[in-house]
């Protein structure tokens, strides 16, 4: 078991009324799974993904990640945990504009305080694998959307995470680029990386091994 959510509630108070973002979510993810989260806008997909990714907190419930009780951890430990085991891929790529392709991929390693020689080797491998060696000195704005997302994935993978969280990774791409990215995810999953993706598209969801549907913060089967 990679992670487990038990009775997770998350809410915001607005105007004296409590609005639930997540309502009694129970989720167990085994290593090697490829899960798709689906649901209409505002159903809490991204919120759930952020909770899993430890970027966002929750109000009630328990969250265990690799035998650690996330809900009891301090901010710093939590950060160390996700830094170590989780990679993020975003719909809007979220590359750092001021950094080149190479540097963008390298950044997570910097924050892990890895030695320069090791970093070089790892980044070179990654560039190789994704066939973007020739673009390593370009800045994000010089790349197409698909290429940017490729860099985004490469960056997410560089620290060898156990889990990849992807928030509509193909949302900003045309269908051909989208297909390539999904194929890549499939391949990664086959190599043993656990993947949770948020998606609107049935077709993309089909790449996964399991689908979770949300409506108004609640899981519907």
């Amino acid at each position, binding site marked *: 078991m990679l992670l487990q959510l038990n009775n997770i509630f998350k809410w915001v108070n607005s105007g004296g009324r409590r609005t639930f973002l997540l309502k009694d979510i129970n989720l167990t993810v085994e290593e090697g799974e490829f899960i798709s989260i689906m649901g209409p806008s505002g159903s809490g997909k991204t919120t759930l993904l*952020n909770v899993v*990714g430890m*970027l*966002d907190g929750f109000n009630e419930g328990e969250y265990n990640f690799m035998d650690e009780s996330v809900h009891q951890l301090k901010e*710093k430990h939590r*950060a160390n945990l*996700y*830094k170590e085991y989780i990679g*993020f891929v*975003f719909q809007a790529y*979220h*590359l*750092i*504009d*001021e*950094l080149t392709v190479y*540097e963008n991929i390298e*950044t*997570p390693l*910097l*924050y*892990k*305080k890895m030695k320069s020689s090791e970093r070089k080797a790892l980044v070179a491998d990654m560039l190789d694998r994704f066939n973007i060696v020739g673009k390593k000195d370009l800045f994000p704005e010089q790349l197409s959307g698909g290429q940017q997302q490729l860099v985004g994935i490469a*960056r997410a993978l560089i*620290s060898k995470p156990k889990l990849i969280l992807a928030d509509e990774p193909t949302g900003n791409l045309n269908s051909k680029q989208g297909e390539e990215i999904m194929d890549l995810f499939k391949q990664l999953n086959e190599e043993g990386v656990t993947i949770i993706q948020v998606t609107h598209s049935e077709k993309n969801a089909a790449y996964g091994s399991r689908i979770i549907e949300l409506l108004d913060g609640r899981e519907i089967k």
Partner: protein
Amino acid sequence: MIRTYIKTAWRNILKNKGVFSLNIAGLSIGIACCLLIVLFVTDELSYDKFHEKADNIVRVVFRAKVNGEVIKEAVVMAPVAQTLKEELPEVLDATRIRRIWMPKMRYENTTYRDSRFAYVDPNFFDIFTLPVIKGNQENPLKEPGTIVLTRDEARKYFGNSNPIGKMLVMGDAEEQFRVTAVIENIPENSHFHFDMFASMEGYPYAKNTFWTKSDFFTYLLLREGTDPELLEDKLPPIVESHMGPQMKDEIGMSFAEFTKDNQLGLFLQPLTDIHLNSDFANASELEQGGNIKYIYIFGAIGLFMLLIACINFMNLSTATAAKRTKEVGIRKVLGSERKQLISQFLTESLIATLIAMVIGFFLVILALPFFNNLSGKALNPAFLLKFRTGAVLLVMMAFISLTAGGYPAFFLSSFKPVAALKSKFFTGKGTKGLRSGLVVFQFVISAGLIFATLVVGRQMSYIQNKNVGYDRDQILVLRDAHLLGHNKTAFKNEILKDPRVKNVTTSAYVPAGPTNNSMSGVFLGDRYQRRMHYYNIDEEYLSVMGMELVAGRNFSKVFGADSLNVIINETAVETLGFKDNPIGKTLTRANDKGGEELTVIGVVRDFHFKSLHQPIEPLILRYNSYGGLILRTTVADMSGLIESIQKLWNRFDSGEPFTYAILDDSYKETYRAEQKMGDILRIFALLTIFVACLGLFGLVTFTTEQRLKEIGIRKVLGSSVAQIVTLLSKDFLKLILLSFVIAFPIGYYFMDRWLRDFSYRTDIRWWVFVLAALITVFIALVTISFKSVKAALENPVKSLKTE
């Protein structure tokens, strides 16, 4: 990691060139001003510290209050030095300076009259650190008739030949001095600059025992660890025991009787306080000192300049923070810790500071000659390379990068990653309040300085235009004309033939610039009143100087008729209680022969014979003309006249150099310190508001960018260009108006105190505030309009399309 910080910082800088240049421009100006001020202040504070024993040297000074008259003198009586050394165990040694005002000095056939000359006790060079570079190292002034020259002075008289053993001759009495040593030139930061030091041995005055005549600058070397203030307490009994008996002889009062209503005593002044913390009249000091007040003022301005520049940096960084939120979010998601982000942002401000410092450094080197000219200093750019300056620079750099970059760093790094990625979190509301506060702070300082500049300017023009009781235009002073001796009359008669000369008077007394000073005690009957100033003049003096006789008559040429008659000024009339009819009243002037009775024949309207800092004091004019010549001319440009007079002077072939002074220039010279201060203040005020406006410009750029869409919509809805400009300027104007509310009361408080230093001064009228406000608002509006007008004129379709 550091490399990455620097790399990203540099790329960010390149990306935001506009904002960055504004920051750098402001910072480098701020740094340059601050450095200049640091140089200036350190120099002022360094006075006399080069003497190795500086911390243990004090000067003995004299202070008294006699019948309401405050007497402050930096000189004391001849026997003080020896007496204190003998009677106080804390005093290790004592030495004296007796200044002789530029005597005629001759070596073989060359004569100069510009050597600053002093008799000093033989132990002078043991107490003061003035290294001998040639000649007798040990005790050059032991023998009577020996003299020590500074390096430049030795070269002046002897060129490249060896000065040791050469003979100098002083004055008409042909006193002989043998050069025994040459010392290094006296550093600029010394409170005295003599060119020659003659041995006090054999100088007859040095031995006199009068406790009633002050002529000697006296310095004590105290035992290590002695507190001068405690030692001061031991002085009164010593003064009483020595001065008492002599006082009884002189004014017929015992010391106890005299001090019942009057105060009098010797005090100790640390050597290092002399330059900045002295309140002695310039005439009494060795040299015009600085003023600790100006050190505080300039220190504050330097700090303010730096703060304003730092504030620009802070403001622009937080204002543009919106652009950085995404980056912060990503970095956090990728595993960055907060402190790493803080380091990254601080690196950016450090790089900016470094660049600004290098530019500021060059600005200082460029501005230094100009600043020296302005401040009357000889600051050297080499000073910047000294180790201590390096330390100051490092501290300054740390200070600037932390102040300027600290807030943005902590602020930006505090974003929560999810919120930052959504970019919804950042509306800038929280920082807007702070930014407004900082803008207000900047304009408080700018408006305050503009106000101060206006007040100083007004006081200076008041001084220029003040009716000082005499007409100082077109007057030429030839103070050295008496050097012609018996030829003076012939010289005067020749001058009178020149049609450009209206009138000539003979007197050594001039109301501005170098002048003789005479004071002596005045009695009414046998009641001692106070000391009063004397002017010795002839019958032409009043008319040449344009002074007005308000009662009685002028002196008359008839020989001997007026030798015991005097004209007094209005203040003297009042002080002496001659209100109802002063003419014919008598007073007694104390002199060596027991006093002479003088009769008042006229009253002259009060004129300022001291600077406007001091109230007009009682003055007695006597008919006793000697000294140089004072000419009333009919030409505004006196250069031609001066040339002809010089030719005339040379015809008499006296061997004396020709000198002259234009009275109006001397008058202005009196207020040079204030003039200097005013000039410096004006420049710094301008720079301050310039830097503040750089920041304002940046902020306006930012807000107009943010509101581009709003502007577009408003224009589509029919808003005029003027309405949009108003919309954009309104918020800033409010802040600036608010800053006036704070700036003016503070400014008024300080400027009022500054004005109080002048006995005669302008008042601060309401319109000075209005003018200061208008100037500030005008400058700010011009700055704002650069951007706001452009934004308002933009085609709305363009801004709406991009959304």
